[in-house]
């Protein structure tokens, strides 16, 4: 019989740190004071912070126990669609923790931080080459921040041309953050519908593209896991009316070394180093969302920019048309180190191979599950495939319950109820880092769940049953959020 990773075992309860310990208990001894005591100015005095009194062991056990409640890609498969939860090679961590990087202070003079500056500079060149763009800023903190930065650059471009434009086209298969980023920049997002094949047609774009529209935000591959095959024609339509093409590159893991968005008409693009380039993700973040642009837009990139002259690197603020600073100091440097280590350790050929395998794995799952889960668009996909609960509805089983039941089998659930164009969507992205055996196990779990939905739906209604905490009351949590411990 197949052994799934999900099992039950002894799990430790763990209270909040403030509910542990005892008054006066401490975890370390401070060195004896060897200078005269010197009181604070009375105005600066007040109650100290409410720190718990704990021993070192109590603190260690606290965090070890919490970590045992957690699920991460180091523990099991994490096929969260649109998130590229690939394995984060430990080599990246080793490089990022080299003292010269890890202990560098952001205010060091440039003469003492040449290595760090060179890394940012070279990473920007590598990302430019991978995307087919000319200039890059690694400053944005994550994907949506990269989108906002890109929107500000597009705004600066039109303003510079004396052109007042108020709208941005966003397809219904774009990432959910796209319309929000456009709106945050003051643009009015205009939705266009994808066609019967799940992609955007140039005609649909031509219908809404006008002289009042600043451009289009297109996620490619889109959130149905489909490549926007008409991207070049769409770019032509937008460019002809004076607009710019923003490409959301969050799904770049499908096309590394295969398509360069700069070659097919994108003017601005962001990448997610914490997705495609294997830096930790989610709770393990922070992220990094570099923005890549065409030469004509480089002058608007955030400052400071790392510049090179005769082998020496420095930070330059001398770009008068810049949109300004978008992050403290120079962005999330630790993430950049991990992405740089990943790119160099993989090399061009292996990056391409990673994308090919990511696409192959998704298509393998698509083909092996399409007889038990309804496939929203029955055609080859890119790095992720989108099913729905249509076949399970007759047994009163929904996507949410299928996802919860997967937890019992030891897998992180996929993304659910997104994209919105598919009712009850189940969006699976295995990435290239899972082995065939692991993917087969996942497929077998999904097939077993589809069978349970027919024969024993109670198992799904009650799921998850093996976890420390059972089904959470999401409705109550959303209606009456309790934001304090």
């Amino acid at each position, binding site marked *: 019989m197949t052994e799934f990773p999900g099992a039950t075992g002894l799990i430790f309860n763990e209270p909040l740190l403030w509910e542990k310990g005892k008054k006066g208990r401490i975890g370390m001894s401070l060195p004896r004071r060897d200078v005269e005591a010197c009181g604070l100015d009375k105005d600066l005095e007040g109650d100290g912070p409410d720190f718990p009194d704990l021993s070192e062991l109590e603190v260690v056990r606290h965090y070890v126990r919490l970590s045992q409640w957690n699920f991460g890609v180091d523990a099991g498969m994490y096929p969260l669609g649109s998130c590229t939860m690939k394995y984060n090679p430990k080599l990246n961590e080793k490089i990022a923790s080299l003292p010269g990087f890890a202990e560098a202070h952001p205010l060091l003079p440039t003469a003492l931080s040449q290595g760090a500056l060179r890394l940012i500079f070279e990473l920007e060149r590598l990302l430019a080459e991978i995307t087919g763009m000319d200039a890059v800023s690694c400053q944005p903190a994550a994907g949506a921040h990269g989108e906002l930065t890109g929107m500000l650059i597009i705004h600066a471009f039109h303003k510079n041309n004396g052109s007042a434009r108020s709208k941005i086209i966003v397809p219904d298969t774009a990432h959910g953050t796209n319309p929000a980023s456009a709106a945050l920049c003051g643009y009015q997002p205009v939705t266009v519908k994808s066609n019967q094949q799940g992609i955007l047609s140039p005609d649909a774009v031509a219908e809404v593209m006008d002289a009042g529209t600043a451009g289009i935000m297109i996620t490619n591959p889109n959130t149905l896991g489909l490549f926007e095959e008409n991207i070049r024609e769409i770019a032509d339509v937008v460019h002809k009316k004076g607009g710019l093409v923003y490409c959301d590159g969050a799904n770049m893991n499908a096309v590394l070394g295969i398509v360069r968005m700069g070659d097919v008409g994108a003017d601005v693009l962001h990448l997610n180093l914490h997705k495609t380039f294997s830096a930790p993700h989610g709770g393990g973040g922070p992220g990094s969302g570099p923005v890549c642009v065409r030469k004509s837009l480089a002058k608007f990139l955030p400052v400071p920019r790392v510049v090179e002259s005769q082998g020496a690197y420095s930070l330059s603020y001398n770009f008068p048309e810049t949109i300004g600073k978008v992050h403290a100091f120079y962005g999330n440097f630790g993430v950049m180190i991990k992405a740089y280590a990943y790119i160099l350790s993989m090399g061009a050929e292996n990056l391409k191979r990673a994308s090919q395998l990511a696409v192959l794995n998704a298509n393998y799952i698509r083909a092996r599950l399409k007889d038990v889960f309804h496939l929203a668009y029955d055609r080859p996909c890119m790095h992720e495939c989108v099913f729905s609960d249509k076949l399970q509805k007759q047994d009163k089983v*929904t996507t*949410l319950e299928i996802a919860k039941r997967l937890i019992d089998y030891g897998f992180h659930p996929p993304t*659910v109820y997104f994209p*919105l164009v598919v*009712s009850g969507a189940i969006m699976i992205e295995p990435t290239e880092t899972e082995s065939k055996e692991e993917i087969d196990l996942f497929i077998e779990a999904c097939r077993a769940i589809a069978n349970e939905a027919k024969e024993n739906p109670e198992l799904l209604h009650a799921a998850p049953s093996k976890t420390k905490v059972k089904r959470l009351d999401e*409705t109550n949590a*959303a209606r009456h959020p309790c934001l304090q411990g």
Partner: protein
Amino acid sequence: MKQISELNLPDDIRYSEDHEWARREGDAVRVGISDYAQDQLGDITFVGLPNVGDSFNQKEEFGTVESTKAVSELFMPVGGEVLAVNEALVESPGLVNEDPYGAGWILLVKSHNPDEMNSLMTKDDYVKRLKGTE
């Protein structure tokens, strides 16, 4: 989720393409979302309401409804001025799930154009439309 045959779809109201309903009440029109819409959305956690006195055209977005699954826009089944909003939904958004045609109403509107009511679907047309999307 409910089968179409299990839906509560009164025949004294009209339905829009976007699953809002409209009921004539004297000179005014009461507006909410259909049993199908609340069932599809799942437990509703927040309803974003417009202000009394705001005016909207037919099909214009007037608010949002948020469930544990997604945020959806609300569109005017008929154009008009907002006479009242259901303040009870601020504290108890679940009323939309429990009683979509009664306590879960969303707006009371002073309609600009009485003909707009006639452009909406009857129960029979709405059921046909729902069957088409299955």
